[in-house]
């Protein structure tokens, strides 16, 4: 039987698990009614991005429930999303709650979950390329390891290595990194409500917040609902540490491959970064402005480099991004 939580409190509902999409979490951002139709919910649910999909709507008859304790409605057909729960968070947990009696057990389980995650191997391969990139831009192994531990965001690391390595000033590198990292803010905002419970101390959430990057974020939505709420911080710490250690190791392997392998293979490892980041950005592109930003960014920055301003990455990126945004605005908000 599924268990429902509303802002950390378990709700007294019995819903057959078959009617509930596998563990998902919703951050309800606006208030709406859900009496007969899920139309507005469809809109809201689509704000969940990074590959987390709502179940197909309309597969079930819509049923709404009124919760006595909170005086609000929520929608059983949509599995998890509260209707009329303005700004409140609601999670569901499906059957298969892990038995984790201690924090140590939860931490170990978190560690063990990383090698079982397909996405973890994708990010390990990405870091192989980042290690080779750091080698060929003449950074030290210590610098590379420290960068992965401290930054822990692939795009930011690629931007930092490339800008600093090709002679941009640290101020330009810092601005480019900061612009690339703003996307972490909404990720942390949406993942922390899953990790914390009412008694969590802020200090204990610093580490899960630091681990938050796209892989951790996506996998948290899949894994955390199976972890009892009071063990989630320990689990997230274990999972994040295993991911980050694996990435430090694979970046070192990439660094040595770039150093030791014959040139044609070394070039292949180095080539991983541009091709993997290009294709994964393309696969995340859904709307017009995403495609425009990608395409224009590819063209503008080399053009800006021809002008020898020394600010090519910032100038090219800001111009291409702003132009994409402007085109979207001019075309109206049609998808």
């Amino acid at each position: 039987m599924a268990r429902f939580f509303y802002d950390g409190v378990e709700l007294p509902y019995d819903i057959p698990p078959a009617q509930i999409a596998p563990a998902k979490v919703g951050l309800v951002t606006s208030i709406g009614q859900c009496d007969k139709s899920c139309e507005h919910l469809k809109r809201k649910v689509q704000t969940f991005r990074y590959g987390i999909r709502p179940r197909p709507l309309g597969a079930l008859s819509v049923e709404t429930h009124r919760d006595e304790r909170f005086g609000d409605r929520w929608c059983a057909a949509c599995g998890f999303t509260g209707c009329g729960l303005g700004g409140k968070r609601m999670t569901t947990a499906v059957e298969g709650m892990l038995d984790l009696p201690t924090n140590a057990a939860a931490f170990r389980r978190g560690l063990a979950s990383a090698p079982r995650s397909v996405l973890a191997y994708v990010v390990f391969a990405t870091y192989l390329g980042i290690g080779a990139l750091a080698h060929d831009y003449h950074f030290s192994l210590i610098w590379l390891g420290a960068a992965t531990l401290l930054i822990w965001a692939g795009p930011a690391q690629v931007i930092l290595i490339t800008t600093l390595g090709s002679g941009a000033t640290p101020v330009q590198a810092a601005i480019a990194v900061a612009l690339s990292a703003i996307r972490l803010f909404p990720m942390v905002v949406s993942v922390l409500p899953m990790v914390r419970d009412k008694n969590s101390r802020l200090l204990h959430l610093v580490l899960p917040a630091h681990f938050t990057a796209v892989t951790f974020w996506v996998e948290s939505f899949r894994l955390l609902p199976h972890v009892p709420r009071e063990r989630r911080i320990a689990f997230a710490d274990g999972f994040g540490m295993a991911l980050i250690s694996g990435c430090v190791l694979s970046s070192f392997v990439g660094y040595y491959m770039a150093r030791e392998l014959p040139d044609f293979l070394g070039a292949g490892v180095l080539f991983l970064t541009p091709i993997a980041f290009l294709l994964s950005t393309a696969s995340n592109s859904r709307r017009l402005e995403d495609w425009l930003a990608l395409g224009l960014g590819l063209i503008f920055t080399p053009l800006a480099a021809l002008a020898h301003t020394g600010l090519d990455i910032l100038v090219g990126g800001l111009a291409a991004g702003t132009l994409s945004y402007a085109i979207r605005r001019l075309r109206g908000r049609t998808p």
Partner: protein
Amino acid sequence: MSGASEFHALLILVLAGFLPNEVWRMLGLFVGSGLSEDSEILVWVRAVATAILAGVIAQILVTPPGALAAVPPLVRYGAVASGFLIFLALRRSVIAGVIVAEAILIAGKYFWS
């Protein structure tokens, strides 16, 4: 690398890499809410972030570092283009695109030069 320049490089890492990145996570932790995923400012931020990353990718391809610089430009661009076409043809399969692009690049470098 000497100790002083290593220290200098790590200092720049903290100031130009760690702090501008981590500040957003800590804002998310301490501020907690108030920015909708669909707000206009975030749409602009996402577009600029994507364009900056695309620019860095272009820079690595156009003026490549180290071993990649020894690969003829035609092979580099050809590998990227074929990888992208395979990616599109196989329903946006990132892994297939990467494998094909890598194979073409390595083979091109091996036989061409």
